[in-house]
């Protein structure tokens, strides 16, 4: 099963400079866990100390929001995930 995840310019430095990484899993949570398995240093960028996704991160699958049950959202082969960081500069 191959799913692509765009980790954003905020996190690509923790993925050996790759912005798009191939992961496997049948839910968003499993895909993120696979991402962390491949690049352990990316974990604090995604999750807080309690293992919850940071409140300033949103996960989109094929361009659609996965809120509110982000980690449980099912995914299938060929899906594209995006990690979107909240930004506030102006």
């Amino acid at each position: 099963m191959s799913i692509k995840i765009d980790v954003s310019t905020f996190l690509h430095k923790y993925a050996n400079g790759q912005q798009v990484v191939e992961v496997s899993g049948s839910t968003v949570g499993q895909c993120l866990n696979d991402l962390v398995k491949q690049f352990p240093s990316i974990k604090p960028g995604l999750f807080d100390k309690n293992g919850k996704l940071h409140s300033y991160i949103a996960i989109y699958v094929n361009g659609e929001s996965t809120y509110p049950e982000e980690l449980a959202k099912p995914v299938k082969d060929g899906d594209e995930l995006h990690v979107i960081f909240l930004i506030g500069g102006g």
Partner: protein
Amino acid sequence: MLTTDELERYERQIIIEGFGEEGQERLKRAKVFVAGAGGLGSPVLIYLIAAGVGTVRIVDHDRVELSNLNRQVLHWDEDIGRRKIDSALEKLRRLNQGVKIEAIEEMITEVNVSQLIAGFDLIVDAMDNLPTRYILNKAALERNIPFFHGAVYGFEGRAMTIIPGQTACLRCLYRGVVPREKFPVIGVAPAVIGCIQATEVIKYIVGIGELLTDRLLIYDGLNLKFTEFKVKKDPNCEHCSHFASKE
């Protein structure tokens, strides 16, 4: 009614299909509130005022600093230390004397926001922090005023248009907060996003094109990509869920 000078000044946009003199007259009658005269506010204000929006109110409480000048193109070397509203007002009045421009030195808060936006038809989010954006989003929803969001970070930017009662709002899109910090930014990022916001404002007023509603546009300058994400109204949104839908 447009004057002879106005017909000449705005000729190139009046001849755009679907724009016409009626579109220009709508711009002339419009009253736009712009929150912030910095990185995003500079292109937003320049292009709205060049396009002939009738009345513009600018609110900003900062003074010009040297470190602003890589991106806040309304402010120049000679303006360091001046109030941004004074620096902006001076240039913008020289750009187009036909536009009524008001500038207010205030920090936007939950207490004063209603008074500041009263009487205005549209609100442009050109702020540099999320808490104030949320205050403006809520106030725009309460007063049924379209809200034009933009934000930048580094080479990236975001934009989305919010029509109260019809579309997802800023709080449907973002729920968390990020610490107020010195954010990295290259001037071309707010230039791109500010121009997109100004485009949306003009389209809304004139009544042409398709608005950037229920869609978050992400501009990635480093890879030169624009990507769209669908945003749905959150039925439990703490800002907009209690307003009746007009759909």
